[in-house]
């Protein structure tokens, strides 16, 4: 009898998966966040609840998409069983010697987008700026969270610490500016220049506008912090060079709304994460996987 008809046949994928979501949620909830500046801790709790929900939606969405792939022809067993096999094979592949060689190809093809560079420098720059900014911000977030709330690294916490100035202020602004520049190119190209090859549907506009709102929201928040001389925005503002520019257009009194804007920006960022698997942005995950998939799938996947 064919397996996979009963919950027990699928449990060994879903149980570890749910455990993974719970573990991530616990990490998010249990971090002290002592160094996060927000006057009212209720805002922080609302933000964390949103992040947990959004991360869960993100992971479920990814699982759903992966299972859609696994329903395809070429692999044996239930989609869940196939996915587990693929994940195990991928893990073995990542740990193998071959991975080093493939990694350079992967960076060249999927991150540096070598082929796009040859075809259109404008589009290559646009993608590289958005992707580069996104990746940089993701890693900076991890570094900052780890060094502030786990390692309690003082130069990252102190208002005049070198790490705070160069990573939290300058690094984030640079990454945000990269994304902003890329998004502006994308928006101008898509909505103003409209070259013949561009086809704009709701999903395309939504992705660009969502990203723009999040990035601009970050700069607005920083500008409010600087203009209102909110704690952690009182020294070395020149490192937050974009936020500083935004602050010039803001009155000092706006500082009283810092918490609210912080929450809106946080929720928007969390929603963006949840939106990825259900949007055009899913290509950020699917494209690199598709490029390398043939090497990681058990044989016969395309026969």
């Amino acid at each position, binding site marked *: 009898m064919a397996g996979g008809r009963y919950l027990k046949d699928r449990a060994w994928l879903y149980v570890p998966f749910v455990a993974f979501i719970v573990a991530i949620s616990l990490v998010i909830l249990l971090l002290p966040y002592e160094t996060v500046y927000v006057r009212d801790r209720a805002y922080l709790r609302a933000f964390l609840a949103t992040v947990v929900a959004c991360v869960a939606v993100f992971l479920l969405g990814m699982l*759903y*998409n992966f299972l*859609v*792939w*696994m*329903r*395809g*022809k*070429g*692999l044996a067993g239930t989609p869940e069983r*196939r996915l587990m096999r693929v994940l195990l094979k991928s893990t073995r592949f990542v740990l193998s010697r071959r991975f080093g060689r493939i990694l350079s190809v992967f960076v060249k*093809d999927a991150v540096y*987008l070598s*082929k*796009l560079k040859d*075809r*259109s420098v404008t*589009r290559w720059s646009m993608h590289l700026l958005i992707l580069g900014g996104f990746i940089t911000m993701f890693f900076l977030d991890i570094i900052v969270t780890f060094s502030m709330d786990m390692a309690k690294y003082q130069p990252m916490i102190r208002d005049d610490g070198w790490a705070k100035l160069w990573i939290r202020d300058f690094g984030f602004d640079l990454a945000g500016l990269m994304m902003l520049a890329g998004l502006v190119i994308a928006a101008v190209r898509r909505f103003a220049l409209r070259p*013949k*090859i*561009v*086809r704009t549907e709701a999903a*395309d506009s939504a992705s660009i506008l969502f990203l723009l709102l999040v990035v601009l929201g970050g700069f607005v928040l920083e500008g409010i912090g600087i203009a209102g001389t909110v704690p952690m925005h009182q020294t070395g503002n020149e490192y937050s060079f974009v936020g500083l520019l935004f602050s010039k257009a803001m009155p000092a009194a706006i500082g009283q709304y810092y918490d609210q804007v912080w929450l809106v920006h946080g929720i928007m960022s969390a929603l963006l994460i949840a939106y990825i698997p*259900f949007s*055009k942005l*899913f*290509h950020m995950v*699917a*494209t690199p*996987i*598709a*490029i390398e*998939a*043939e090497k990681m*799938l058990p044989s016969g*996947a*395309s*026969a």
Partner: protein
Amino acid sequence: MRRLDVSTLDVLSLMRYDACTRCGECTSTCPTGGEAQDEELVTPRGKILRLKEFHKRQYGIRARLLGPRDISPAELKEFSERAYQCTICGQCRTVCPDHLDTITMWENMREFLVANGLGPLAAHDQIVKSIENYDNPWMQPRTQRSRWSKKIEKEVRIKDALKGKPEVLYFVGCTAAYDPNIREMAVNTALVLGRAGLDFGTLGNEEGCCGSTLLRTGLLEPARRTARKNIERFEQTGAQTIVTSCAGCYKTIRQDYPLVGKVNARVVHVTQLVGELIESRRLKLTKGLSRTVTFHDPCHLGRHNKLFEEPRRILESIPGLRLVEMERNREEARCCGAGGGVKTAFPELAQKISDLRVGDAEKTGAEIMVTSCPFCYQSLKASIEVKGSSLKMMDLMELVRESCE
């Protein structure tokens, strides 16, 4: 309500549908969708988006929660027709910034269409039936297959590969064997191999269709049967090398047959083998041909198999011959419009694409347009004639044969 069977869409194709960023790079260079008729649905992006939409309607989250939505027969018919307007030339794979292997995607898409009773198109039926009944797509009797060789019987020794155990098996292919206008391609190939003193033979009337047409139109099962039968014949000959003069046969035997069974012989295209014979000086090109030629890269030879330099090296080794390149050459070469069953189902569209390619060749100022695929030869020659172009269409082996006389 009709629900599409998606079980034939393969894992990698499903991934690739999601990986497509819809950038549209493929739309402008697509010979059928972008260049010949400006029809988005024929372009790679158009096909991907439409298939994803169908999939979403019936298998998406909303469909799983609220039930699948209908896809009207008219929508399905339109999609199928447009999908079959693709020549599977692979230009989209060349330009895709996401490195998507679109060639396998389109072949798999056709398999999906066949599984859902949406393909192949009525126009393909005749060819399919012909292959099943006559072992060739041209409705010609099996006994006529080796007729092309009669006129050169005295000039060159062509062994019966099943009895004579030659070193090299020449797989002639249906078009060169049956089409009276293309037969010279087989004749010239055999003469060139003979001039090099090669121990070669053919399967004669026992040669069957390679199955390329079946594969490209999505008929995988009959294609597999054809492949198994051919592999069996290949093994019976004991040949160490199989050479084809048809780019379509070459792609099929080299790339698709190994998915069905092991082909022990080395599979080469005639441009590879002749190139080696020239290099090893077994074949001497002595007669000068003071002509200017341009080479059209057949999709199945070039983009699909990366044989770009082999035919050019042969052309360059012909004394006096001058090779000029079309603006779009090698990986970027424009398709002739005949592949993927397009010429059978949409002859006017195929003609339009051929005209564009002949236009490319005319711009070079060359006297002769050379290729190395009977299908490209057939289409481009017809286009030259219809356009009243001053170009002359030639097969590469014809030039080689002239030069080694």
